[in-house]
Each structure stands twice: as structure tokens, then as C-alpha cells.
């Protein structure tokens, strides 16, 4: 394979794309080599997805753009053409039919047949060998519906391998994976690289990129910024390329909760649902940012939903400002001054077809309404304008559908909706998931500002640097219980990634 090294498999030369008068890509030139893992980074809206769509044949680049595969100029005019050229893409939202088997999914669209009948035997045999090579612990005949997210991802990879793809593009593949699953995925990606595939790896996670990639290319505002080789990759350099400035003021923590911690705003006592959340008790104080850490599946989201009244709790009491509230529905919780930012803004948060303005006003429009429930449009417009200004939402117009905004801006719209209800307590579930670095730091600044104004903020996050960076005190959940606490009172353990992980993972030690 040594002769293959450094030979570009796919080259893009001066690839541009304009939508109307908006330039989404400005003459990007990039080469992807055989047997390399090439990370592609950039904030949301930097042009990564446009570039992907061009490679997948979903959209056509402007005149003058050149795409060259193995020295030959090609036209990718459709998804089928992309497939035939050996380009495979694994999207964040997986594209499998859950009601079909693994083999049927992999062969979908080109099923082997004997006469008029599907040749299931050949199908299963063809797939089994690939699954074995990839180290899958499920069978070709298994239904996809019964597989975990990580296993489904493996099916997608198997599909690409089975189709003899030459370049595999992965869009944020680890967003929904646990740590162990991520490790397994990395091993597999390295194996595919050894086998001579070129891998384009799109991610927001610096650590992964650092660990995995041979080269990193950065896009900013639709333009190519540069490529770093293996030796030159370091987080500070990459961030500087992505945002065009330094990282020094990334995490914002100007509020002062240590010196003068306020009185408790939210008191949670023995709240449980009898299934995934054991009785949990904790307080959030005025002007405090409380981290809720723990592994995926430790019950953090479930606990938050119980507090918010989104799911029924079987035991426990909840008080806001010393008053018993015990919300039985999200409506009760909102009226009691509790707001909850869901971890899945597209599925559980936003109305994607409705406008920015409608989404922001959804929580307060009945409060603002004129007599007879008539919308107060003047007030709605004013709120929207202020929210766009205050949180820095980038949108063409307040009337544009939210679905067209980038992840970070969608998140700011959802946050604005919550803030309009003037909550006393704000529970943020993975507030920066799928959000670019610029929006991330804006969200941190917002959390800091709210704490200074006296709001009690709880942040559920799987990103430990984030927890460490912005929280005053952290409770750590494990298997549905609050297993420990760091920070806060004098004499408590320091808030460090190590201390949090020790509590989050020591289930076995304690049981022994």
C-alpha cells in the first residue's frame, strides 16, 4: 500500500456554490488521499454540509467547479452517480428501514435475485462476511429495529464497505454514541483506513479529531482556511482557524456564586419515577450554575423531565422559592417558574415549519394576548426583535421558518422561548449539542448573565470540559441515583474531569 500513500483519491478544485445571491462556498480546493482520515471542521454554516451535498450529488456546484477522482474529471449528477464513483456518506440521521433486516437494508435497491424471486441466501452470505470483517456482534438476518444506535451506524458502514466505496464521509458520527461505542467506532475507522479507504470525518469535537485524524481541514464562512498535517494539529490552532480568534475567553464565569451563594430557589426532594430514577434530592440556589453530570443513561434527562412535569413522578416533592409546586404537566411547571430546554430540539423543541417569531412567542402568547385571545402581534414582534438582538440569532427574517436555521441559531431560538417566560429556574439539557463553537461561547455567556441576574441554572451535559468550565457545583448521577457531588462548599472535592468521572463510573467498586 505504500505506493498509495499521499496519492489523492478525490480532489476538489475551486468548488463554489451560490444560492441566489448567497455564497455558500467560495472556491474551495481540497484533496482526500487514499488511506487517510481527513477531518473537516468549521462552525455550523461554514459550508461543510453544502460541500457534502455536492459530493453526494444532492446539489450541483457552480460552473467552473472541478471534481477529480483518480485523475479523471467527473460529474456527480445524482446520488446514484456518487455511489458508482465510490462515494458513501453516513449522515447524522441514519437512513435505514427499521422494519427490514440488516441484509435487506444493505442490499436495498440492488437485491440479488434468482428469476423473479429474491435470493435471500446469497444476500445473507454476502452480508455475513462483511459483518464478520467489521466485527459486528449481530447477524445479517436481525431486524434493524432491534439494534442500538451504534449498531445501526455499523450497518451503514457495512453498506458502504459492501458497495466497495472508496471514500467514506461521516457527519458527526459520535453525537449519539457512548464513550465505549465511540472507542469501538474509532477502531473500526482506523481499520477501514488500513484497508485503503479514504475517510472524511466531520466533527465538532476537538478531542476526537485530535485523536483520530491524519489531516484537518478547516472551513470558515464558506471559504477554505487551511489544512494542518498530523504534527501540526493542536486544539488552539484549529479553534483559531475556525473562529478567527483565540480561545482565551471561551468559558465565561463572571458571576459569583461561591462567595455568596443565595438561598435555594428549587428544592427537589425524593423525586422518582419507580423505573429509571431512584429517589433524588438536591437544591438549586439563587444565581448558581449547577452541573448535572453522569454517563449517558444515568437518568439525568429522566430526572429533569420529572421535575418539569413532562413525565409522571411516583414519589417526591418539588418546591420553588419554598412554595410547594409539584407540577403535573409542563404547563404547571412553566407557571411555577421552571423552564426546561430539551436535549432534542428538533424532535421535542421546535416547530420547524413555523417562523422564528412564532417559535419564540409560543410560551408567552397567551400571557400577552388581547381580549378574546387575539394575538398581540405588536408585542410579539417586539419580543422577537429583542430576543434576536439579545441572543444573537442569525436569521434572514423573523418570519423565516426555524427549520432553515443552523443548529446554533435554532438552539438560541428555543432558549429565547424559555427566557420569555421569565423563569426562576432554568434546566438546560445538553445546551450545546450540535452547536458550533461561536454559538457555544454565546450560550455560555448567556448562562453566566442569567446567573448574575439571580436565575438558578442547571446544566446537564456529557461534555465534561463544559461542566468544569461553567459550573459552580456539580452533582453526579449514576444508575438513576445522585451518586456524589463536587465543588460548592468549602472542603468539597474540586470540580475536575477526573473527580466527576470517578463518581460517575465507580458503580462496580461501590457494589463490591
Amino acid at each position: 500500500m505504500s505506493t498509495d500513500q499521499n496519492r489523492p483519491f478525490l480532489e476538489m478544485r475551486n468548488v463554489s456554490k451560490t444560492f441566489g445571491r448567497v455564497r455558500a462556498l467560495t472556491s474551495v480546493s481540497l484533496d482526500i488521499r487514499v488511506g487517510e482520515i481527513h477531518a473537516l471542521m468549521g462552525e455550523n454554516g461554514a459550508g461543510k454540509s453544502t460541500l457534502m451535498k455536492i459530493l453526494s450529488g444532492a446539489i450541483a456546484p457552480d460552473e467552473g467547479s472541478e471534481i477529480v477522482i483518480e485523475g479523471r474529471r467527473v460529474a456527480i449528477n445524482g446520488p446514484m452517480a456518487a455511489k458508482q464513483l465510490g462515494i458513501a456518506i453516513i449522515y447524522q440521521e441514519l437512513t435505514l428501514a427499521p422494519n427490514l433486516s440488516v441484509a435487506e437494508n444493505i442490499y436495498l435497491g440492488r437485491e440479488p435475485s434468482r428469476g423473479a424471486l429474491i435470493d435471500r441466501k446469497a444476500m445473507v452470505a454476502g452480508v455475513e462476511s462483511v459483518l464478520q470483517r467489521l466485527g459486528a456482534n449481530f447477524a445479517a438476518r436481525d431486524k434493524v429495529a432491534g439494534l442500538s444506535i451504534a449498531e445501526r451506524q455499523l450497518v451503514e458502514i457495512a453498506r458502504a464497505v459492501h458497495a466497495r466505496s472508496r471514500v467514506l464521509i461521516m457527519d458527526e458520527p459520535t453525537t449519539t454514541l457512548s464513550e465505549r461505542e465511540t472507542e469501538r467506532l474509532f477502531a473500526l475507522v482506523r481499520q477501514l483506513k488500513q484497508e485503503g479507504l479514504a475517510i472524511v470525518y466531520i466533527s465538532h469535537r476537538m478531542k476526537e479529531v485530535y485523536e483520530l485524524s491524519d489531516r484537518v481541514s478547516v472551513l470558515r464562512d464558506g471559504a477554505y482556511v487551511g489544512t494542518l498535517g498530523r504534527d501540526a494539529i493542536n486544539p488552539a490552532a484549529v479553534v483559531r482557524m475556525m473562529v478567527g480568534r483565540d480561545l482565551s475567553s471561551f468559558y465565561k464565569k463572571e458571576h459569583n456564586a461561591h462567595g455568596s451563594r443565595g438561598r435555594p430557589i428549587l428544592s427537589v426532594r425524593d423525586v422518582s419515577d419507580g423505573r429509571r430514577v431512584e429517589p433524588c434530592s438536591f437544591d438549586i440556589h439563587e444565581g448558581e450554575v449547577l452541573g448535572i453530570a453522569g454517563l449517558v443513561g444515568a437518568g439525568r434527562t429522566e430526572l429533569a423531565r420529572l421535575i418539569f412535569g413532562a413525565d409522571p413522578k411516583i414519589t417526591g416533592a418539588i418546591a420553588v422559592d419554598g412554595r410547594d409546586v409539584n407540577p403535573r404537566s409542563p404547563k404547571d411547571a412553566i407557571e411555577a417558574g421552571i423552564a426546561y430546554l430539551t436535549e432534542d430540539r428538533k424532535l421535542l423543541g421546535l416547530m420547524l415549519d413555523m417562523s422564528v417569531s412564532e417559535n419564540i412567542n409560543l410560551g408567552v402568547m397567551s400571557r400577552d394576548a388581547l381580549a378574546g385571545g387575539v394575538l398581540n402581534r405588536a408585542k410579539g414582534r417586539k419580543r422577537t426583535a429583542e430576543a434576536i438582538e439579545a441572543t444573537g440569532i442569525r436569521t434572514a427574517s423573523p418570519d423565516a421558518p426555524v427549520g432553515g436555521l443552523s443548529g446554533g441559531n435554532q438552539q438560541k431560538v428555543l432558549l429565547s422561548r424559555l427566557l420569555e417566560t421569565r423563569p426562576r429556574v432554568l434546566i438546560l439539557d445538553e445546551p450545546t449539542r450540535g452547536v458550533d463553537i461561536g454559538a457555544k461561547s454565546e450560550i455560555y455567556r448567556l448562562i453566566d448573565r442569567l446567573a448574575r441576574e439571580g436565575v438558578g441554572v442547571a446544566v446537564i451535559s456529557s461534555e465534561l470540559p463544559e461542566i468544569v468550565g461553567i459550573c459552580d457545583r456539580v452533582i453526579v448521577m449514576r444508575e438513576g441515583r445522585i451518586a456524589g457531588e463536587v465543588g460548592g462548599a468549602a472542603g468539597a472535592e474540586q470540580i475536575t474531569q477526573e473527580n466527576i468521572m470517578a463518581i460517575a463510573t465507580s458503580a462496580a467498586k461501590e457494589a463490591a
Partner: protein
Amino acid sequence: MTSTHSSAAEAKRRNPALAGNLRGLGMLPALVLIAILFQILSGYVETGGLSWADGRFMSWNNLSIVTQQASINTVLAAGMTFVILTGGIDLSVGSVLAASAMLAMIASLIPGWGMLGVLVALIGGGALGLINGALIAFLRLPPFIVTLGTMTSVRGLARLFGHDNTIFNADLPFAFLGNGALFGVPWLVIIALATVVVSWVILRRTVLGMRVYAVGGNPEAARLAGVKVWSISLFVYGMSGLLAGLGGAMSAAKLYAANGLQVGQSYELDAIAAVILGGTSFVGGIGSIWGTLVGALIIAVLSNGLILTGVSDIWQFIIKGLVIIGAVALDRLRTSGNART
């Protein structure tokens, strides 16, 4: 390379408000086109040549007939718009219309209190709609199944009300609603237009309407935002029933009679067709009442125009069905990339 992005999709990206208006207009060009076609065809049938002036379709007299024919379906389709905007369906409106018409006729026979018939129809229709809503909101049954059931049961109820007979009232006190006119505009048309305007105000200018869109767009997100989703379900099916009741009163007023078996047969299909022709998404969240009005007019224009041009009854059915499919297909092409009908 061929672009898979239609110009409409690009227009939407550039100016979402404009695209929204275009979509709201939706089938208006199709309506105008069909009307022009019928004017020319009816002229051809009359004279055997191409003569605009001899066409009978666009005479004031005929347009008045068309709009009256469209009126009851417009009222039903307005209610259906509320339901479909939440992602639901109401198959029972034809039967509810029949039952309400029967109630209206029965009440109209009470000496001296005959005008009560209209009110009784509205209350009866609204109540039946609320039953649909309650079954859907509280028992969490699928709307299709609930309203399929009530469609059948309520039809039986309508026959029961009249002991399976036709009820007549030659002195119907509210007959003017079906046959009279105010300043030359038929009452049926006034009622239909008023229904559309009120529906527009509710949908676009009130908190309730915004919540209808929100629930249709994403029910779980609406719940987490503090919307009582069950109350919205109750409202839209109640509204659909209420307007079916109004349709029942209009039908009774027009005919001076009602028959539980015959009135409102398969009206639900025309109402659904009007909503879909109007560009409202079948999965909810997207659509407008103006589109529904245009959709109802297209259906009425087709029926009337095919009769005027002497097309046989059998072919009328075939052509109407194909036009509905074709029109929606055209709309799909026009808005490809963002359509979710």
C-alpha cells in the same frame, strides 16, 4: 450537471415570506385556468366555434350558482382545515351534517319557535364534534378510526331522528338562508365567506389558532412548551362538528327538507379534497384557510362546468378524480423540496 433544486425551493430560501404567500395562493392559477377553459368549451358547445362571448360559464347567473354550490362544501372544508392542520382527519362531517339537518327540521316544526332549528343544528353538530374530540384527546384513539366509527353511527342516528323518513316543512322559517339573498348576494355565499373570514381570524390572529399550527407541527414540542394538546384536539373536532352543523342548517334551508339517509352522502370526501387542493399538509402544521376556499371553488367549478359542457355523469366522476390528483401533483412539482402534503 443537472440541479435537483427547483427554482421554487431557491425562492423560498431567498424570501420565505414570499414563498409562503405563493403557497397560500396555491391553486388560484389553476382555478382561473379551469374557469377560462370552461368558458371557451361552453361557448364551443353552444356555437360549434371558438367564441368567448357565447360561453355560458362566466355569466353572473352561472357564477352565482357555482358559488352557492360551493358554499356548503366550503363551510365543511373550513372545519376540516382546522382538523387537518393538527395532523388529524374528520370522516364524520357528512353524517354530522345529516343528523344536524334532521334536528333542524324537527325543531323548525315547533310552532312559533321554528328559527330555533338553526341553533339546534349548531349545538347538535358541535356536540357530535366534541364527542369525536373527546375520544381522540382522552382515549388517544387514532382520528381516522374514531371518525370512521362515528361516520357510521351518526348516519344511523340521523335516520333514527326521522324514523327513517324525510321531514318536510313547506313554511320553513329559515328557508331564506338557503334561497334568499342580501343585496343580491345569496345568503349561502355570505355564510360561507363569513365562515372563511372567521376561520382565518381564529387561525392567524388568535393564540388558539397559533396553537393549532404548533400542535400540528410538533405535538410533543407543543406539550413541553406548555400547550394543553388535548384542549386543542377538543377544539378542532368541536369546530369541525359545529361547522358541519351549520352545513346541516344550510342544507335543510335550501331543500325545505332533510332525509337522514341521503343528505350529506360522501360530503366528507369533497371537504377533504378541498383542503388538500388548497395546499394544506396532510401531516399537519402547514396550510391556510384561503387555500381551502380556492380548493372548494375548484371542485364546484368542475362540477358545474362539466354539466354545462354536456359531459356525462359517469365521466364527470372520472374527470373530477383525475383533476384532484393532477392538481396536487402539479403543486408537488412546483414546490418540490419543501412539500410534505
